């Protein structure tokens, strides 16, 4: 980012902060804060170990300093401003889930990616409320301003949980550590992981069944101790087996001799089954949930890498939320920017902008986005652009 662009972006952020408000976390005085500022050098430096005793103090700080990124600790500390983590005296932490495009989908356009992550967020909300019993009312959601969503849960009884306890929840939503033998026991009802796992396994055996006969036989007899006869018999009763798998109330004793081939399939096709399980999981970023001393972006602040608002949301608001419209805070006034890339298409505010290398006139909102992403620099204004 050149000096002119930097000044422009900082000026736009400043005007946003003058009139807007943030979703300040409860127990403000027990949180550590960290900020990254607009600096000419490429090196990123965070000013952290800060604390604020009142909302006004925080607001004044943000308005005067105009940070590029603003974060607070999910943890509560007795001394949040202490310079080392040990001295801060941890007293608890919010429960956080971070859904980031990196863990969900790759290599698709930005808007498609955001839509996929939103779906994943809805899936996670469904598991947390429908299965684990968390109330949707106590979940605070936020679009991160970048490529994903955050869920904040502040139930008092989980505040002092360590990483181990949090790992139980994150492993549950991600489907990590499923024990096939347990999943195949008789279960009471047709939901939760037994049903999902058994459906995934049914799909996998059906996939083996839809290979041509020779291929399927080779696949099965490739397992140690599985002969032609066993494999052929297995293939013949595949539809029946798939139906048994799909009925979670049916007991299948995995370590019985007659199920040795099923056991071999589960071991031999581990990767494929894992993929099918992942498709049914909510792919949240695990370490974020188990880390009890993490900093998280302040909802209502701007994301310096996109210019979008990290948007506070409730579960009810998530359905209609469109980040490329609702997280955009800047207007339609025309701005000239100089694009570095040969050509690009950007969906924003309900339009698709086709841009080419060189100077383009775009709405302010798009100009801020492109400059923050380092795709463009501000052109024109008082300066000549050479065009």
């Amino acid at each position, binding site marked *: 980012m050149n000096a002119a662009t930097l000044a422009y972006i900082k000026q736009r952020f400043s005007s946003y902060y003058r009139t807007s408000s943030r979703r300040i976390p409860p127990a403000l005085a027990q949180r550590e804060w960290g900020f990254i500022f607009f600096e000419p050098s490429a090196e990123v430096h965070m000013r952290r170990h800060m604390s604020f005793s009142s909302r006004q103090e925080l607001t004044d700080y943000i308005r005067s300093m105009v940070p590029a990124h603003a974060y607070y600790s999910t943890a509560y500390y007795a001394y949040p401003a202490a310079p080392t983590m040990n001295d801060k005296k941890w007293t608890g932490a919010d429960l956080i889930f971070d859904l980031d495009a990196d863990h969900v989908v790759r290599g698709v356009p930005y808007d498609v990616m955001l839509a996929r992550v939103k779906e994943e967020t809805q899936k996670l909300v469904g598991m947390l409320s429908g299965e684990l019993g968390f109330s949707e009312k106590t979940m605070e959601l936020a679009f991160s301003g970048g490529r994903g969503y955050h869920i904040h849960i502040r139930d008092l009884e989980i505040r002092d949980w360590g990483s181990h306890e949090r*790992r139980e929840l994150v492993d549950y939503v991600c489907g*990590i550590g499923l024990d096939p033998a*347990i999943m195949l026991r008789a279960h009471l009802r047709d*939901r939760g992981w037994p049903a999902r796992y058994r459906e995934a396994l049914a799909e996998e055996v059906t996939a083996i069944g839809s290979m041509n006969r020779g291929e399927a036989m080779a696949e099965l007899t490739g397992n140690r101790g599985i002969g032609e006869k066993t494999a052929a018999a297995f293939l013949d009763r595949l539809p029946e087996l798939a139906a048994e798998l799909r009925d979670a109330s049916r007991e299948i004793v995995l370590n019985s001799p007659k199920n040795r081939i099923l056991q071999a399939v589960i071991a031999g096709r581990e990767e494929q089954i894992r993929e099918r399980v992942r498709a049914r999981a909510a792919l949240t970023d695990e370490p974020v949930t188990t880390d009890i001393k993490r900093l998280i972006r302040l909802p209502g602040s701007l994301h310096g890498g996109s210019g979008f608002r990290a948007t506070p949301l409730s579960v009810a608001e998530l359905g209609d939320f469109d980040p490329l419209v609702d997280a955009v805070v800047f207007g339609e006034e025309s701005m000239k920017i100089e694009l570095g890339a040969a050509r690009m298409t950007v969906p924003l505010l309900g339009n698709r902008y086709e841009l080419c290398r060189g100077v383009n006139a775009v709405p302010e909102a798009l100009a801020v986005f492109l400059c923050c992403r380092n795709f463009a620099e501000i052109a024109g204004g008082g300066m000549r652009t050479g065009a």
Partner: protein
Amino acid sequence: MAVRLEPEDFAKYPFLEEAQDFVRARGYTLEKILTSSSGKIIATKAVDRIIAALSSKLRFDDTIKLESVEKEILSYSIARILIVCINNRTITEKLMHYESDRVRYFLHRELTDERGDPEKKRIIMEKIGIAPDQEALPVNAYVELAAGLRDDAWRLVNRDIRNGMVRIHPEEIESIVREKLRIILQKKLPREVPEELCSRVQPLIDRITKANQEHILESYGDIEEGYFPPCITALIAAVASGANIPHTGRFAITAFLHTIGMHPAQIVEVFSRAPDFDLSRTVYQVEHISGRSGTEYTPPSCATMRTYGLCVNRDGWCEHVHHPLSYYRDRKKKEQKKSETPA
């Protein structure tokens, strides 16, 4: 007829409020215990409690002898003060396991012993917060318990869950009570013990830390890299090859080597195999993890290693363990035994 807890029960269940009231009403104070001659016997008993807890062959059976009610209750309380002074996570955890397992044993005896009373078992269990016929637990309460239980069957992901309630089976109740109690005992530990008091009990602490050192040597013996679990071997190889390993990986190596008794200087040597070795930074990290800062860290379990993507090259030994440390201890013991057997 309502069942009442007797003083004799307080010796079995010293964690009860009633037990603590019992000794308080008799005018025992910490000062008195530390200065009187009868107090010395209590202090010795407290040390014995901790040393017994350190032993991995911990078992309660009918040979257990209860001493006087006061002595049992007071040694229980003094032991708790001592471990707060020592501030070693492993020792603390072992004492918590010891005390909760001791309670589990006496609860069991309420059913089997002719002088036992099932009604008392119910009363104690309710004080712990689990009913004898409990069929389900709320997810949050369950997770607190499951986090400390190792078997895969306890993982939340492997449970039947309906509307925020986790189903539990009758045969699991005993383990659940023990684990719940362990957590309660841990939570109720004194937050801090004045330094002045800790220095007065230093001779007792010395006896415990010495026993702990001996115990470590006994269970892990000389360090043999050949029996390291594949995850740790892979991490060490990665360090040596100059690969940039994540902080979680460095932590795992350091905490593992420290726990099996490696000296910080030797651990630093392991890291010095890296081409970009930075002495002062490594020394700082190693000393921090191995307890210089006051907290000793235990190495991550297999589950944690999996979460961080550090569980690699699994082999047959991995099937039977839930912790890299158990892998090392078991494999070393079995393979050494094999080699000692004459052909």
